[in-house]
């Protein structure tokens, strides 16, 4: 793992903040986030719903609505994404950075055949002719273990099961063999059996193709199975980041500890309270109101992200 850190990162995010303007309120969904994704690495971004992790993924592709604003820096292979032209970004999407969107139920166009929808991305970025594209997608489908791949090409999304739709979305995201794949909540809305299948699928995908992956999930157990490194996000900012083993075995942040304790196999203890509204963020430590070791210092002051152990960063006064 460590040798990767010496390599130069594939994607480098520095001090990224993304805000939304909703009427007269400003919502800061991503706040001063810095992280690197190295070649051939799976980085999991873990946090509760609404912590800003999906917004972070969409910021990377600059796919957020008009009422949003991103500041900071996102460097992909040295190219500044936040300053790229629309056309440069377009050429990057799907080709260099692929996305596997969340919610399989609504992310496929209901009026187009799924085979066509996957072929579309292939034909757009590679100069492949229609019959060849067709052949490639059938191959892709069978590699992703979609039953009867040839037949499925002509199916519409509503004719497929949730798990099959998820596979179609995966094949769409990886069709052009992008260097970086953003996977947004791949297990959302799937039952336990399907969840395991999708996890296996993604694991194989990452291992076979030597590609980097940003895995966004609320489920630490999914992250544990797939990720090399884990970043934990709370209320728009990263509170803990380190190697998968480090974060899971010796979690330093009380939020990470609580998240682990809330897993079904680890006590199933829910975290009391709610995460703060992103439009009204408290001045001190954001987790302080829900923290099991809440300190008076955290009520007033906002802790910085510090390197507690080598390559293990924590945003907590107790970790000092």
């Amino acid at each position, binding site marked *: 793992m460590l040798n990767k850190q010496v390599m130069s990162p594939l994607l480098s995010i520095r001090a990224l903040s993304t805000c939304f303007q909703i009427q007269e309120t400003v919502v800061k969904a991503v706040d001063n986030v810095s992280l690197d994704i190295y070649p051939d690495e799976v980085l999991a971004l873990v946090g509760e719903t609404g912590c800003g992790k999906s*917004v972070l993924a969409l910021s990377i592709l600059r796919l957020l609505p008009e009422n949003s604003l991103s500041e900071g820096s996102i460097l992909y292979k040295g190219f500044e994404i936040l300053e790229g032209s629309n056309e440069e970004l377009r050429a990057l999407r799907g080709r260099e950075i692929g996305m596997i969107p969340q919610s399989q139920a609504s992310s496929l166009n209901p009026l187009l055949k799924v085979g066509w929808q996957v072929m579309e991305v292939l034909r757009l970025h590679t100069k492949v002719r229609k019959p060849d594209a067709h052949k490639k997608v059938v191959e892709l489908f069978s590699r992703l273990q979609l039953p009867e791949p040839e037949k499925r090409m002509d199916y519409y999304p509503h004719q497929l099961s949730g798990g099959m739709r998820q596979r179609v979305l995966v094949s769409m995201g990886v069709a052009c063999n992008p260097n970086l794949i953003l996977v947004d909540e791949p297990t959302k809305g799937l039952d336990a059996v399907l969840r395991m299948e999708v996890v296996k699928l993604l694991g194989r995908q990452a291992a076979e193709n030597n590609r980097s992956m940003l895995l966004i999930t609320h489920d630490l157990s999914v992250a544990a199975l797939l990720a090399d490194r884990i970043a934990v996000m709370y209320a728009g900012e990263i509170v803990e980041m380190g190697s998968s083993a480090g974060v899971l075995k010796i979690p330093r942040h009380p939020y990470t500890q609580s998240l682990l304790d809330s897993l079904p196999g680890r006590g199933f203890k829910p975290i009391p309270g709610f995460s703060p509204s992103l439009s009204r963020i408290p001045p001190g430590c954001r987790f302080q109101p829900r923290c099991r070791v809440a300190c008076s210092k955290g009520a007033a002051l906002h802790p910085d992200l510090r390197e507690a152990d080598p390559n293990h960063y924590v945003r907590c006064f107790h970790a000092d």
Partner: protein
Amino acid sequence: MDVILLSAKTPKKVVLRFLKQESMLAVSGAAVLLVIMVALLGPLIMPHDPISVSLTEKVQTPSFQYPFGTDPLGRCILSRVIQGTRTSLTAAVVIVSISGIGGVLLGLLAGYKGGGVDSLIMRLVDVLLAFPSIILAMALIVSMGPGLESVIVALTLVHWTGYARLVRAEVLTLKQAEFVEGARALGNSSSRILFKYILPNVLAPVLVMASLDIAHIILSMASLSFLGLGAQPPEAEWGAMINQGREFIRTAPYVTLFPGLALMFSILAFSLLGDSLRDYFDPRLRDKVIE
């Protein structure tokens, strides 16, 4: 998100913020208020008697004495436009109230009871909706004879279907809602659940529909009167007044112009109010945030 918390400062600020955020609602509300005021204050602000005929002063151009001119029978057009506001608004309110209440009740019944009652009511709705509404109204008026009363009865019979459909659909969704299931589990009677738990939740869309419906009814009524099926002379009604100006469009266009403007203003006011009420009640249409 949390706009209420942020803005809850002084009443004045709350009002100002409301006016700024809901400017469409404020403007259309003011326009509707103006129409209502004109109708209420009618007799006080009319410069002349809207009915009495003066053959010596027929078709006069607008002047200080007759700001909108006079019609082919020498009546003050301004006074008749004001009287027309009273006619249209009263009739529209009567029609919307009766058809609205009737439609809501039938919709509640159909949605809540289901089964035979439901299919009976909904098939009736289907048949009534098989006609363009004004054609059905015309058939009913033929049977009752032309006149404002016939128009009111006909439009009431035609317009309840919209409310019934809307309320039925809402009830079908609400029936499954947790708070209704809860109320049922606690042993509340059907009528109590319907009126205490379900009705309050369908009022907002009904209100929106009613506002849009008033605009629609004012238009239908004017159309029927224009065709000679509605208000009969000497009654002052916008559609009838426009019809009366037909032969004079070459020489005296103001005879048709002013009632038309009043008609359009009222329709615009009520339909805008309906639209902005819908936006106000349906925050889904505002800017969305992801996740």
